[in-house]
């Protein structure tokens, strides 16, 4: 097995003990599956599943200038966040391309928690640090520009771990953990709890399309917390889940994966994620380019598609055709365990990006019909 180079999360020992298949991912050794991707996928859709997200980066940004500075670095409107609220947002390069997609939480009057992708921790931190030098000069107070840092930036990734607990029975699980009176934070909000003497932050968010939370704790508490959830969650069907199910779940929801659906060459407007960009803000890195794309239209757009028939699953880098012409390439693709048919996303020329457009996916020299669908591809039956 290819257990080669890779950092280990504080839950590594638990994964191995549970018989997980470990794979390198973003510089880490992570579980891709325990019982099986499809089984874990269904556990999340029907009960509850727990994922190790300790590999993700956690930065603390604090100080009186933190909010204004973050608003110049991120696309969404940080100023709109009350204490305890969070938002999905992008860190862009000067050309509007995506360095990372992340969630920023306002954890105090002048304190923010940024949860970033594992493979991007180093790059994000350097980028933020390099721009943390009084460049709030874009603001009207340019004359008063100071050369000291705008905010205090701290990378706490190594000393903290985290899990995502996802699925319709997450509330039942928290009743088991904290009693019947416990109230989870509202959607996109974060709140601190103490569970069995462990201080934890619980954020109502996720990457699966189900109700769920992401829980952050001290690295020293990781194994204890993990085992507590599995033990208390046993009777509601809680299962440990790996990166494999995480990918099929997020793709059914059309949530982008940085490095596949997002990259330094693509901006959030092209990716169809303009909702998380506030162009009304006076200034943020990449804004000019996004305004230009918004005004003149994107050359290519990220679309979601579904195969018309059963067949080989679509996969990244397969070519997409429309009326015989090559119009783009798949960035994410898989067999959807919920829909039992091939699904994917890819960038196609704007003219071929309308919902309902028939596409063809080239798989080993043969073309298979698909159709561009509205996002998300999976909707919960209620």
């Amino acid at each position, binding site marked *: 097995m290819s257990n080669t180079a890779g950092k280990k999360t504080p839950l590594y020992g638990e994964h191995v003990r549970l018989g997980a*298949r470990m794979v390198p991912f973003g510089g880490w050794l992570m579980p*891709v*599956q325990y019982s*099986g*991707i*499809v089984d874990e996928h269904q556990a999340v859709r029907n009960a509850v599943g727990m994922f190790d997200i300790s590999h993700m980066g956690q930065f603390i940004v604090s100080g009186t200038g933190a909010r204004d500075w973050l608003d110049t670095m991120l696309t969404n409107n940080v100023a709109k966040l009350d204490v305890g609220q969070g938002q999905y947002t992008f860190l862009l390069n000067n050309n509007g391309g995506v360095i990372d997609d992340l969630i920023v939480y306002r954890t105090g009057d002048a304190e923010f928690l940024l949860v970033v992708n594992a493979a991007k921790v180093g790059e994000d931190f350097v980028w933020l640090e390099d721009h943390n030098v009084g460049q709030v000069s874009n603001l009207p107070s340019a004359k008063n520009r100071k050369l000291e840092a705008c905010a205090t930036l701290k990378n706490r990734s190594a000393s903290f771990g985290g899990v995502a607990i996802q699925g319709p029975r997450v509330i039942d699980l928290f009743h088991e953990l904290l009693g019947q009176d416990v109230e989870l934070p509202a959607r996109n909000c974060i709140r601190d709890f103490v569970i069995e003497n462990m201080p934890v932050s619980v954020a109502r968010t996720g990457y699966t399309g189900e109700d769920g939370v992401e829980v952050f704790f001290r690295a020293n508490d990781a194994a204890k917390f993990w085992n507590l959830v599995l033990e208390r969650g046993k009777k509601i069907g809680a299962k440990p889940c790996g990166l*494999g199910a995480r990918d*099929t779940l997020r793709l059914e929801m059309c949530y982008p994966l940085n490095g596949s659906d997002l990259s330094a060459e693509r901006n959030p407007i092209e990716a169809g994620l303009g909702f998380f960009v506030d162009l009304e803000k006076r200034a943020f890195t990449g804004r000019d380019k996004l305004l230009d794309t918004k005004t003149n239209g994107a050359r290519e757009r990220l679309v979601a598609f579904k195969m018309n028939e059963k*067949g*080989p*699953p679509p*996969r990244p880098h397969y070519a997409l055709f429309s009326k015989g012409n090559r119009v783009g390439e798949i960035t994410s693709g*898989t*067999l959807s*365990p919920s829909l039992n048919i091939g699904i994917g996303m890819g960038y196609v020329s704007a003219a071929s990006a309308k919902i309902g457009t028939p596409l063809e996916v080239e798989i*080993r020299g043969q073309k298979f019909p698909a159709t561009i669908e509205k996002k998300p591809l999976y909707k919960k039956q209620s």
Partner: protein
Amino acid sequence: MNVPDDLLYTRSHEWIRREGENIRVGITDHAQAELTDVVFVELPKVGAQVEAQTAIAVVESVKAASDIYAPVKGTVVEANSALTNNPALINTDPFGEGWIFALKIEKADDLKNLQSAQTYKDQIG
């Protein structure tokens, strides 16, 4: 991991069962466990003449597509069409119902290049 003693094996994780002039081929228990849930199988065409070590079938899991190779030169005489509707047979019964194709072999001598169960066991550790 199950590695039946009465079969031959390739380095690329196919098993081979001798049936007179024909061989039946599938992927090993180890291979199916590595691949995880099989969701699609592309079968070779019956009648196709195939060379040793050429990719003639594809087994796809949720995560990846893997080529399956002809262990020796021959002609495809059977393809397991049950896999079209139930590709998971490769996971549940890799050495039985999960067989992939059968070849009429050209030279019985070619089989000498394949590995014994013991050698394969050593390979997968």
